[in-house]
């Protein structure tokens, strides 16, 4: 007997079941490969990614140089790995910074409520009315080029959405009957917060942090591309794409293509993993799984 179409369980957002099945292993493999590469390559390959060799400049991909060489003879594969290493470091640290700030602000607004909540959230609205790339450029411009100004810039401009998510989640949880039951059962404010509210908020904050990582990586690359991120001699995906713009017009595609792929593929994989996580912790999805 076939199940009526209206009763059949739907895949989330209409994605075909096969695509959903592959998404997790493919994304996990890509992220694992990237992590292994950025950790192991600098330890195992005794080459200098900044070493210039003008006799080898702009060599097309070959066995000796799988991704070719750039306009000053540096190995593109090695520089891509080092560039991704920096981008991941900046992405993870900046995302954690933004999440900590956002969670603290959102939790304070949601927990205190009333006038404090309104004032904090209006301040968040004002802050978010300024384009964050512009604000980021302003912040990095105050320091000398380096990794930490980029981390500070991305961290200080990306906590707003986390603050909104945490506050909204907290307000939603606060009005639930189980919180009323805890209050009626004699729980202190601290216990209600730590035992009932925080565990409900942390998965959302963690998810926001993971979703922030690819965004932060793109920001770092954008700042480096504009010449405001890492110093130009350091391997960074943004720097590499910026340096290779001229060679692309001459028909040398590899110094641009591979850093671009190194930027797109890992960030899509991280975002995809975060998407799987979001589906798992989404209560509607969870109740679907229980049926």
């Amino acid at each position, binding site marked *: 007997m076939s199940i009526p179409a209206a009763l059949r369980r739907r895949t989330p957002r209409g994605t075909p079941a096969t695509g959903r099945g592959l998404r997790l292993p493919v994304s996990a493999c890509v992220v694992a490969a990237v992590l292994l590469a950025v950790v192991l390559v600098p330890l195992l390959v005794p080459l200098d990614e900044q070493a210039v060799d003008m006799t080898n400049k702009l060599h097309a991909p070959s066995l000796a140089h799988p991704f070719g060489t750039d306009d000053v003879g540096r190995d593109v594969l090695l520089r891509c790995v080092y560039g991704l290493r920096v981008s991941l470091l900046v992405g993870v640290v900046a995302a954690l910074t933004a999440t900590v700030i956002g969670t603290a602000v959102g939790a304070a607004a949601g927990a205190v409520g009333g006038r404090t909540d309104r004032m904090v959230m209006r301040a968040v609205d004002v802050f978010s009315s300024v384009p964050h790339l512009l604000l980021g450029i302003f912040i990095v411009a105050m320091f000398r080029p380096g990794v930490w100004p980029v981390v500070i810039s991305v961290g200080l401009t990306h906590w707003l959405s986390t603050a909104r998510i945490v506050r909204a989640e907290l307000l939603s949880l606060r009005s639930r*009957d189980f919180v*009323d*039951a*805890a*209050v009626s*059962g*004699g*729980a202190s404010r601290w216990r209600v917060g730590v*035992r*009932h509210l925080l565990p409900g908020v942390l998965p959302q904050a963690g998810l926001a942090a993971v979703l922030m990582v690819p965004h932060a990586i793109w920001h770092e690359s954008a700042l480096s591309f504009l010449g405001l991120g890492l110093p130009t001699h350091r391997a960074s995906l943004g720097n590499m794409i910026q340096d290779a713009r001229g060679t692309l017009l001459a028909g040398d595609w590899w110094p641009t293509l591979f850093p671009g792929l190194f930027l797109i593929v890992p960030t899509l994989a991280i975002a995809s993993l975060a998407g799987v996580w979001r589906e798992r912790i989404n209560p509607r999805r969870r109740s679907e799984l229980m049926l």
Partner: protein
Amino acid sequence: MTPNPPALELRAVTAGYDRSAPVVREASLTVAGGEAVGLLGPSGCGKSTLAKVAALLHRPYAGTVHLGGVQARGWRHRAPRAQRTAVGVVFQQPRLAADPRLTLAALIAEPLRATGRKTEALTRTGELAGSVGLGTDLLGRRPHEVSDGQLQRACLARALALRPRVLVCDEMTAMLDASTTAALVAVVEEYRELTGAALLAVGHDRTLLERWCDRTVDMPGIALPARAPAPGPNR
């Protein structure tokens, strides 16, 4: 000799979620010690809001609440713990009233742990679960792994954990079948017999509340429609 003060008394309570349009206006209600009162009213008339005011979980715009003759001076966390825990509450929807992360054992023990009685929590959790008819095999499960009836039993055990002097049951049996309803009502009655606690049972099932409670009152300030005749088989 002065007569015993009522276990729960609401005097001219006005409450709601918008000061310009309160849900409950000037409602007064008295529940004597050991008495069971059924509060009847149609959906949306403010019964649950009044129940939350009685349990000191919702601050009214006007009026006072007295527990054992003592006026409540605060609401939610601002109410003294002794007053808050003097009223046990069972909510209508057990799924919303149970923290999804806690096992049933942790759920039942939560009021004891929250009030610093950790050793008592270890010994009394099983006893409380047994008193509401929950098997020990269910205590390690989380709310999504048990039925509504089993979860409501756990919620009732949680409400009884601190031996409240007043029990507020806000449509406790609305989502349950007849046999579970009968079992939960029996547990409440057994507890009341044992402790002499008062009961405020909120609902719209007149038949149930009239059988269960010593008296029923219609939601104060609400004009109830006349009882309609029972629908015929073709309706």
